[in-house]
């Protein structure tokens, strides 16, 4: 599959997002609801599985296109999950749920998904592309190279975006 050098998320078809969302959510839900399996599951695996299921539907311009949409879906799933958890626990009252990232927590505390989501939206207000880079890498599990390809930008640009966005988000989250 050839990847097209254009920003895949600019053509943000809501229907496709909904499709991927539903499917990914179903897969992720198995994990989120119940068990702690032996193997860690990073989004890459989920996105891959979802891709296997959905790739045939023919509506995707490319694998990059799919990954872009899937990363957005993954973010929404985790945010929704966190919100729902909060409501269930406190009878509707907003409760923060901690998700730990895979390894090496530089900040030595759990990541607050809802806070990250808010910060990411704020970042998008200033610079949408930077927020997309974070979305692809953190929620989509893409590498620097893949995210650059997906957004149709140079790898160097994607890296610069990433460094700044990461520092900016850290700073914003540390102010909470």
């Amino acid at each position, binding site marked *: 599959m050839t990847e097209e050098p254009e920003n895949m998320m600019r053509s943000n078809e809501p229907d496709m997002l909904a499709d991927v969302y539903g499917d990914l959510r179903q897969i*992720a839900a198995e994990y989120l609801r*119940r068990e*702690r399996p032996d193997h*860690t599951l990073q989004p890459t695996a989920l996105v891959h*599985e979802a891709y296997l299921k959905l790739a045939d539907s023919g509506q995707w311009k490319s694998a990059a296109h799919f990954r872009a949409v899937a990363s957005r879906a993954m973010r929404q799933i985790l945010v929704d999950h966190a919100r729902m958890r909060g409501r269930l626990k406190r009878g509707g009252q907003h409760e923060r749920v901690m998700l730990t990232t*895979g390894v090496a927590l530089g900040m030595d505390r759990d*990541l607050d998904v809802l806070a990250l989501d808010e910060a990411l939206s704020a970042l998008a207000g200033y610079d949408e592309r930077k927020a997309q880079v974070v979305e692809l*890498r953190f929620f989509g599990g893409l590498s620097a190279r893949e995210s650059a390809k997906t957004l149709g930008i140079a790898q160097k640009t994607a890296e*610069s975006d990433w460094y700044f966005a990461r*520092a900016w988000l850290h700073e914003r989250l540390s102010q909470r």
Partner: protein
Amino acid sequence: MSDTDRFAKLENLFEQVRDLETNARKAFLDHECINDADLRHEVEKLLAHHDRGGMLDDPIDITNAQEEYLPESVGRYQVLECLGRGGMGVVYRAEQDQPQRQVALKMMHAGLRSKDLQRRFEFESSVLARLQHPGIAQIFEVATWDDGNGARPFFAMELVEGVALDQFVKEKHSIEAKLRLFIAICEAVHHAHQKGVIHRDLKPANIMITHDGVPKILDFGVARTTDADLQATMYTLPGQLVGTLTYMSPEQINSDSSQLDTRSDVYALGVILYELLAGQLPYDLADKSLAQVARIINEREPRSLASHDRKLRGDLTTIVSKALEKEPERRYASVFGLISDLRRFLAHEPIAARPASAVYQMTKFAQRNKTIVGGMAAMIVILLSATIVLSWQSARINTEARTRQDVANFLREMLTSLDPAKTAGEPLTVRDMLDDASLRLENSFETVPSVRADLQGTVGSTYHLLGEYEQAEYHYRQAVNVLTQEHGIKDEKTLKILADFGLTLKELDRLEEAESILRDALSHIEDPVSPIAIKVRRFLAIVMVGMGRTEEADALFRYNYNSLLHSHGDKSVEVASEAINLGSVLMDSKRHDEALPLLEESLATLRRELGDDDPVTISAINNVSAVYHNLGREEDSNELLREAVERSTRVLGPVHLHTLRRRHNMVRGAMRRGDYEASIAETANTVAICEQELGPTHSETLTWVEMLVTGLAFGRSMEEAEQVALSWYERLESEHGPTSRSAGRMAYLVMNLYDSWGKEELEAEWLRRAKTSVYIPPDFIMQEELPQ
């Protein structure tokens, strides 16, 4: 200043100072933020975060996004704690009142969705409750429990305290202790089979070893009872299913789960035994996708048990291989068969299982390899197989079983290593295969060193063909040592390898060494016109050409030429081949008038006698084309070169070193003519082929990258060339480090590019970078070739 402006400013500053050293950052900010202490403070905070890195660097791991949940009770059991969570369910430690005891409660995730399933569940539960064996964790009760989310089955089982087998595997135990424990496990499984219960999910995590060292199998029949619907599971639980798939037989992965029989458990036991003995799984499934895992289990031969530990050679390897056969019919028909063979092994009696014959392996290989990787792979197989057979016959190895088995094993392992399925989608390079075969060679044929030496000679010449001269040297040297010891230096076989060895040294540019070895070899040959004398002399002449001693080369070739003329006549292939060499040397001495008729006539002879597609003819075509080029007859030269490339690609394969060199000559010619677009396309294509077949770090691959970058720089734009060069550098740098040979070579390439571009600062920077590597760039040598 608006928020947006401030953001842009912040980003701009951050970007500029990010990669500077602390002092440089400070100096820069001192200057830039002289009137804005707040901005400076913000940048510094961001820099501090940047330097720390950390959070967000790894993609989010959703498996951690859950909370522990502990029900108070399940049915009549008080839940005490959670013992573990797995793919199909969660296990609690629980307390029962009547009788008073602690039990393990296994709650299944999947509910009973249909009436059919419900009925089957009830039926199977009653069977399970009757299963009683000291090696099986007793199931006390099977029922359902509705916690508000629908009825889910649960099992109340004997609580086994101890360690799981996967823990035991990691500890050190003698082979015998492992086998005894394993036999006990088999006995329990066999008992269940006799009661008509198949486990279907045997794996070390399901086998506990009590503190008394007794194995207890958990979850017997659980998979079947709840119909954990393997297909559905496969799609819903990707990461962890791989862990379970490891122990699943091919038929279990492929077919309807109702078709399974006891032989699927035999397979799982085979994997467990393998893991117990080798400390590793038979297949490397790490980081593979589900589809890949399924393919590996279905198609790939497991790594031979003997390759892990020499002590496991022979019967144990045979037993494990039989249990792990892909087709159930070829496995032990029952667990009892497996137990019996293991007992025989422990009692030093002959086992019943027989290793698969080489012929069977060959047939399987051929069936599986309709899409073999390419001509080279097949060639290596043929070369090595032929060497084995020949060497076996000539050495008159007695029919001692051990040797026969060695040969069969080696052949089998080599064949399976060539199996494209083995790499599960990753590109398999010819180099990989050869490395694999030569590694195995190190541990084979200990009792028959001369067979090994022959094989090493063949491996050496294959490396030579691939342009891997250092590897070739290593194998040749070993072969020479053994052969000299076994047969003496005057033996023709020894001399032949010595000659090849000398030529490899020449390619390594160790010309003096090559000369001394070849001269030494020549001095041991009695008949100066024997084929081996001709060969050694020819190679010596080639070394002389390399040293620029054309007159000596001329004399040596001429001696051969006259001898052959005398013995074979002027229309013979032998004379024609040598005439091509002689003619090339004459060209070097600018004796064109003498050279041209000799070459043209010889080429005609070769075409007539050997045909146009013979490798020797193709070499001659290439060399005559070089002569035309030297004479300025570009059109004639191009025509022949194109022919050589076309024939070479077809006959020798696209990755053969000779093909690549001819292609190289052709592309260079096209570039000289200014035909860049065609060259770029041709070069990019060759880079891709080399990358796949030889790997990204192979010197031939890098040579073509250099050509590509050159073509782009002159034919299109410096920017495009820069992009390709940098991406290759970055890739090799990240994979092999900045000091590696391959990254260094690319750094020189980038440097040269900046040089041509006139970017002096970058050129200097890249030169510095290039110099940190171990790579030393050679002076450019036009690669000509001579038939050998």
